[in-house]
């Protein structure tokens, strides 16, 4: 068993290495990437189906760090088996889809290798039983996200988005590192089991848990750090699917789920998490409603859904465990991968991801139409799709937490969840109506899309229409390629998984737990939200977002200038750093350097005074000699 766990981590890394070496040979690169992903998925399946709980699988041996024990063990149980299976499955689907999607990209090899490395990071994080290994996986993903988002590196917007993602998550990672250090110091070990069972300093525990929440907020895009995620749409669509579906942004949920028993006892960290999650899920859902770009809409929906997962961990009662969060993570992985790959397919057909370009393009596409429909319905939470079950499991867990003494925190989460249900239904309905209603039915062609022009240097990326540049270029260059069977199959399989994925979750403790009343309530809210949009949009003939006043909508599309705020923070930090440097250089260093300056000035002055005229030198010499002689004679006398 243990070698399977090790292989799950090592094989993608090897695939990345081989893929990088063979990047010029497209067939080899694709073959390695796909076959290794498939093999890892099979291994994940075995680990899930035949789990044997073992917490001390050796990797490279413990690090000799004196008092601190760093065993670097892997941990295998049913949860890690299931999550790694789903991750491997999604990675496999994305690899297969990428072969088609990047068929004309000269740097396909690098991309596939990076995806493999990214999978390594996520699988290492999932399998790790050690905080250090978790951090390693976490950082591998951070770096790979920079590579993937910046894949179209000849475009300034993609480069900027990549740096933005990297820097924002990096800032939040400070919290993650501090948290991990605090937890390790408290337990005198980085082993997960030791950390979970350690008893000791409550302050250290709080610092550690809050730090981890901040780190998670960065990678998962909770509110102060959320703005990098929509910009990350600059990456190719498979990269977006990878980052959004099962890996990077969901990794935070998994980390907190692993540490759940500690969180269950610590109100400070959980309250922080609950507030961040509640704010994020409502705010992101509202912004999703206003977006003019399909991929950015999906990005904001991801923010909202991740917040839902985390809210389950923030509000669920201790005895229920982290099952609800993990379950929504898995369900979300299926339908979000489906939606992103479907959006990528659609963008190739339509030549862009702007909703204006996509209007009505879904109707004649057959299988794609079904798949996108299933994905949007699952996102909204329509039974019997996986989204319904997982979301209502979360709601139920939060309700239990609220009624079971969770207090204000749990009620906040519950209210936010119900509001989000309405909003999610609304933006899913809007997207469906816009994509599916034939353009002819809408009468005149829409010239009503808000023309968001990038007039500031900081807002270049945040304009809604920039995300589809790469697709447009690709389509213009190569025409509307018909999809290959395998890529279409991936989308269909993901759609099927979205329908039957609930069966996977049944094996998870607390994975599917739907309360009758809460389910009924959320269904009513869902129907209400959907109907409202359907009604307001005149049965799909009008974009419902048009009814939002322009002075609200345009900033909303741009994310309310959060990007500017980031830049301002960056500038402020740079200014402070410059100030410190200036203080150091011009005040502290001034004295030691002053001596050098004075010596040099004296040398210059001497040089200027002495022009090297021999006659004058002789004169000076003799004057000196005579003076010395006079002195000597006087003294002698």
């Amino acid at each position, binding site marked *: 068993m243990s070698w399977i766990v090790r292989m799950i981590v090592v094989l993608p890394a090897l695939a990345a290495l081989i893929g990088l070496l063979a990047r010029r040979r497209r067939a080899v690169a694709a073959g390695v990437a796909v076959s290794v992903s498939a093999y890892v998925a099979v291994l994940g399946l075995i680990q899930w189906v035949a789990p044997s709980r073992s917490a001390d699988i050796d990797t490279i041996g413990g690090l000799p760090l004196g008092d601190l024990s760093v065993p670097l063990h892997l941990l295998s149980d049913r949860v890690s088996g299931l999550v790694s299976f789903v991750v491997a499955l999604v990675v496999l689907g994305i690899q297969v889809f990428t072969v088609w999607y990047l068929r004309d990209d000269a740097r396909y090899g690098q991309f596939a290798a990076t995806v493999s490395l990214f999978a390594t990071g996520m699988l290492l994080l999932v399998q790790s039983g050690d905080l250090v290994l978790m951090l390693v996986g976490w950082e591998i993903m951070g770096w790979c996200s920079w590579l993937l988002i910046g894949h179209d590196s000849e475009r300034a917007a993609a480069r900027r988005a990549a740096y933005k993602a990297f820097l924002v998550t990096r800032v939040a990672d400070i919290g993650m590192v501090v948290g991990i250090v605090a937890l390790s110091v408290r337990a005198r070990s980085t082993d997960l089991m030791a950390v979970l069972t350690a008893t000791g300093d409550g302050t250290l525990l709080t610092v550690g848990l809050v730090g981890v929440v901040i780190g998670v907020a960065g990678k998962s895009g909770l509110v102060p750090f959320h703005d990098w995620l929509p910009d990350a749409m600059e990456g190719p669509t498979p990269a977006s699917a990878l980052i959004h579906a099962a890996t990077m942004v969901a990794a935070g949920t998994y980390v907190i789920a692993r540490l759940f028993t500690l969180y269950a006892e610590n109100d400070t960290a959980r309250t922080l998490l609950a507030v961040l999650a509640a704010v994020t899920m409502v705010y992101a859902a509202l912004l999703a409603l206003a977006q003019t770009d399909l991929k950015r809409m999906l990005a904001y929906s991801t923010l909202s859904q991740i917040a839902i997962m985390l809210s389950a961990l923030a509000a669920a009662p201790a005895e229920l465990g982290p099952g609800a969060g993990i379950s929504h993570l898995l369900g979300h992985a299926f339908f979000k991968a489906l939606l992103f790959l479907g959006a990528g397919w659609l963008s190739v057909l339509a030549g862009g991801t702007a909703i204006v370009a996509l209007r009505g393009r879904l109707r004649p596409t057959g299988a794609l139409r079904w798949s996108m429909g299933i994905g949007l319905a699952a996102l909204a939470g329509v039974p019997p799709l996986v989204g319904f079950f997982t979301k209502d499991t979360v709601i139920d867990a939060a309700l239990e937490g609220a009624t079971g003494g969770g207090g204000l925190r749990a009620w906040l989460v519950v209210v936010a969840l119900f509001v989000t249900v309405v909003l999610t239904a609304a933006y899913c309905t809007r997207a469906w109506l816009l994509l599916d209603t034939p353009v002819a039915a809408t009468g005149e062609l829409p010239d009503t899309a808000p023309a968001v022009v990038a007039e500031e240097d900081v807002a270049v990326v945040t304009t809604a229409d920039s995300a589809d540049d790469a697709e447009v270029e690709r389509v213009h260059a190569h025409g509307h390629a018909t999809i290959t069977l395998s890529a279409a199959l991936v989308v269909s399989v993901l759609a099927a998984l979205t329908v039957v994925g609930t069966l996977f979750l049944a094996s998870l403790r607390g994975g599917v737990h739907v309360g009758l009343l809460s389910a009924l309530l959320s269904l009513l809210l869902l129907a209400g939200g959907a109907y409202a949009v359907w009604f307001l949009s005149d049965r799909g003939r009008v974009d419902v977002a048009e009814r939002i006043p322009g002075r609200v909508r345009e900033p909303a599309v741009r994310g309310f200038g959060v990007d500017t705020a980031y830049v301002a923070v960056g500038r402020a930090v740079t200014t402070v750093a410059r100030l410190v440097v200036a203080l150091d250089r011009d005040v502290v260093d001034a004295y030691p350097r002053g001596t050098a300056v004075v010596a040099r000035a004296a040398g210059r002055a001497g040089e200027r005074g002495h022009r*090297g005229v021999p006659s004058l030198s002789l004169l000076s010499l003799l004057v000196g000699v005579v003076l010395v002689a006079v002195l000597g004679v006087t003294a002698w006398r």
Partner: protein
Amino acid sequence: MIHLSLPAALAALLAGLGVYGVLARRNAVLVLIGVELILNAANLLLVTAGSRPGAPLSAGPVITLFVITIAAAEITVALAIILVMFRRTGHIDLTAVPDLSDEPEPAGEGAP
């Protein structure tokens, strides 16, 4: 019988004239003449001192001979340097501002 204050006074006079000669001439060879005068003043002083009754080890005349030898060596090297200077710069004017840079200076400048 001879009063030794006379050669001593002559030595002081020759040294003063030598110093003046060193400072009053700009031609390097003529400066050397001044230097020779100073040397001869020293020689005369040595001989004078050696002529005092009871001077030990015949030091006066012997060291005078040595100084003459040293003067010969000195003038050889000094004249060699002066010749090289003349070849490089075209003059032996000690009041000229020398070109301290590495580039060769233009011809004819400051040549006597």
